[in-house]
C-alpha cells in the first residue's frame, strides 16, 4: 500500500502539485522530486493543493523550505491551498503560515499569481 501519491498538472505558467496521503521521512523523496521537476523546467510558480494531504512531518516541511529560496529567487513562489485541520495546525505551530501564502481554495491560489502579472 502506497502511503503517498503525488500528481502534477500545469495550468498556463502555474504548476499544481497534489500530494495525496502522508508525507514523512519515508515518502518525502516523491514529494520533493515533483517540486524539483518543476524547478528543472524553470517553472517557479507552484501551488501545492493539500486537499488530499492527511499528514506532513518535518521532512515534508523541509522539502518546501529547501526549495523556496530558488523559487523566489527566480521571481516565483510556492503557495498552498486547501489544508485540512491537522496540516494547518502543524503549519501554525511552526509559524509556516507567516512564511507561505495559504489559500482556502486552489482557484484563489491560482488567481493570486495572475493578479501579479509576470512577477510573482
Amino acid at each position: 500500500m502506497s502511503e503517498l501519491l503525488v500528481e502534477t498538472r500545469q495550468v498556463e505558467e502555474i504548476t499544481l502539485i497534489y500530494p495525496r496521503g502522508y508525507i514523512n521521512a519515508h515518502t518525502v523523496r516523491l514529494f520533493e522530486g515533483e517540486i524539483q521537476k518543476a524547478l528543472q523546467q524553470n517553472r517557479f510558480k507552484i501551488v501545492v493543493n493539500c486537499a488530499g494531504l492527511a499528514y506532513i512531518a518535518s521532512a515534508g516541511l523541509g522539502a518546501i523550505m529547501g526549495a523556496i529560496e530558488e523559487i523566489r529567487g527566480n521571481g516565483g513562489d510556492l503557495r498552498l491551498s486547501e489544508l485540512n485541520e491537522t496540516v494547518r495546525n502543524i503549519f501554525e505551530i511552526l509559524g509556516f503560515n507567516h512564511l507561505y501564502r495559504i489559500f482556502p481554495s486552489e482557484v484563489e491560489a491560482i488567481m493570486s499569481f495572475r493578479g501579479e502579472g509576470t512577477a510573482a
Partner: protein
Amino acid sequence: MRSATPRSGEPRLRLVFPSETSFLGLVRDVSRKMAEGAGFDASTASQIALAVDEASTNVLEHAYHGAPDRLVEIRYRDDGLDFEVDVCDAGDRVDPRDVPKVDLRQYANERRTGGLGVHLMGKIMDRVTFRRSRGRNVCCLVKRRPSPMAAS
C-alpha cells in the same frame, strides 16, 4: 507488539520495530490510537503521533545513520495524569538539545532544514527530555492528559 493490563509504572504497550522508514506509518497509526485511548481528541492525538514520528525519524537518521538492521523500541505509558512515550535506541549517543533553536526566517534564507523535527516535538508536547540509560538513548515525550472537567 506487546499489550497487557500494565502494573503501576509499567508501559501500557511496547512497540519494537526495525530501523526502516517504511515502519513510520505504523508508528504514526499506533501512536494516534494510543493517544486517543488516553482521552485526547483526534486533532491532539494526530499531533502527538507526529511528535513520536519525529522522535523515531531522529533515531533512524542520527542514532542509526540509516542502518536498516537495528531496532527501535517505543513504550507508551499512561499514569492517569500524563501520557508518556519513550522512544529508545541502542545507536550512537545523540542529544538533540544540541540542535540550535530554530529561527524559521533564517532557515528559509539559508536553505536549512535540519532541526525542525526537534522544534516540532517541543511545540507539541508539554515536556521533551533526552537521556542515556544503559547504553541506550531514551527520548521521553510527555503530554498532560486533558482533565475531565475541561472536557465537560
